[in-house]
């Protein structure tokens, strides 16, 4: 059963402990708090973007226990005890992840709004499948909509990252 407290106005608030980008966070949230809002508003992790908020666009993609999900469809209370990786957790300190580097090299973004989600989906793909085909890359980012550049440079960047990582 979830732990909760009842505030002065009678509203229940639930205890959530979640490991985000390697650090443990414990917070008290209302049941209706969505993971994307929890990250952005309670934890200031604003690298995760909000687009359609209906699970279509993929801007809010984060890894939940290593798997990409739309954080706009997930309740913060439901991630109690689990592990989340956001775009802020992809680089190793000052050192960019190879996927981020290749996105820069290949000019794989323009306005940047879809980029956090794109990189999360791409990183998750390479973690599971280090040598993806072009088709597999396209499948992996099919739930991340880019309205600026199209996908050619993005796909090239992910394939280049896979190549570089093999070395």
């Amino acid at each position, binding site marked *: 059963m979830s732990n909760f407290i009842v505030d002065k106005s009678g509203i229940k608030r639930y205890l959530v402990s979640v490991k985000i980008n390697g650090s443990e966070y414990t917070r008290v949230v209302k049941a209706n708090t969505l993971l994307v809002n929890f990250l952005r508003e309670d934890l200031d992790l604003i690298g995760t973007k909000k687009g359609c908020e209906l699970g279509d666009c993929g801007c809010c993609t984060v890894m939940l226990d290593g798997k990409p*999900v739309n954080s*706009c469809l997930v309740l913060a*209370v439901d991630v109690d005890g689990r592990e989340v990786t956001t775009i802020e957790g992809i680089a190793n300190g000052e050192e960019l992840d190879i996927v981020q580097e290749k996105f820069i090299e290949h000019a794989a973004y323009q306005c940047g709004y879809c980029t956090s989600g794109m990189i999360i989906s791409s990183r998750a793909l390479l973690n599971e499948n280090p040598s993806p085909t072009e088709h597999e890359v396209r499948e992996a980012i*099919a739930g991340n909509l880019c309205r600026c550049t199209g996908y050619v440079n993005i796909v090239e960047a992910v394939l280049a990252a896979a190549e570089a990582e093999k070395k």
Partner: protein
Amino acid sequence: MYLPDFEYYAPESIAETCQLLSQFGPRAKVIAGGSDIIVKMKKEVLAPEVLVSIKNLAELKKIEYVPGKGVVVGARVTHNDLYKSKLLAEKYASVSNAAGQMADNQVRNIGTLGGNISNAVPSADLPPIFIALNATVKLEGVNGERTMPLEDLFTGPGKTVLAQDEIITEVVIPDQKMTGSNYIKFGLRKSGALAVVGVAVAVEVENNVIKDARVALGAVAATPVRAKKTEEFLKGKTVTDELLAEAGVIASGECKPISDIRASAEYRTDLVRVFTKRALRKAIDEGHV
């Protein structure tokens, strides 16, 4: 977008889940992955006062073969769990392939089999192939459990026989005589699109003769439906291209699609004709694919 207030429970057992659902009655809803219900709450189609999360019911997360029973799939199994299951790839790749064509990777990591079924949308991708494979569904409630053919669960768009205190716990694909099965989905895009038409078939073929056939259609009636005339027509016949083409024509006469934003009724009817033919051919030639 923010959700309205609701109370939240995450029970540790099926019994406790059913107890809560019974206690709160129609004010409560189950939440599994949330990919349907959260969207409905955001669109203000639903406003449950209580959400009962089944995230702690670990027993609903299995895909396993039980000798004498069949392949047992728990309600909390996600689309990607189905898609990536080794057991299904071996026995019924038609099921994993159907799951792999759903939504997109992120939603496949969230959405569950139980949610896809309970939601009872006519275009849902998973019911047709499970129905073609003669799957049963198990419901558990405060007064015990019951099992029924999956096709009997649905009573209309968004409607099932589930009682307020009941949840779906598992779906079972029984051991088969069927030698092949296949699901073809037609969506308006390759990814992230709901089915305009979905056709699932299963066939038992011996020496090029069809001994048994099951055809289940999605998105062309108020519920997923069997094309029983088509099935009867196929039984005992020798496989030829003409036979399969004729089966397609019969199946297209058995559906009652509507026209909506995605396609006209006429177009859907014709798609049923073509996909029935193609799905039969695949299942006959390639087995469970």
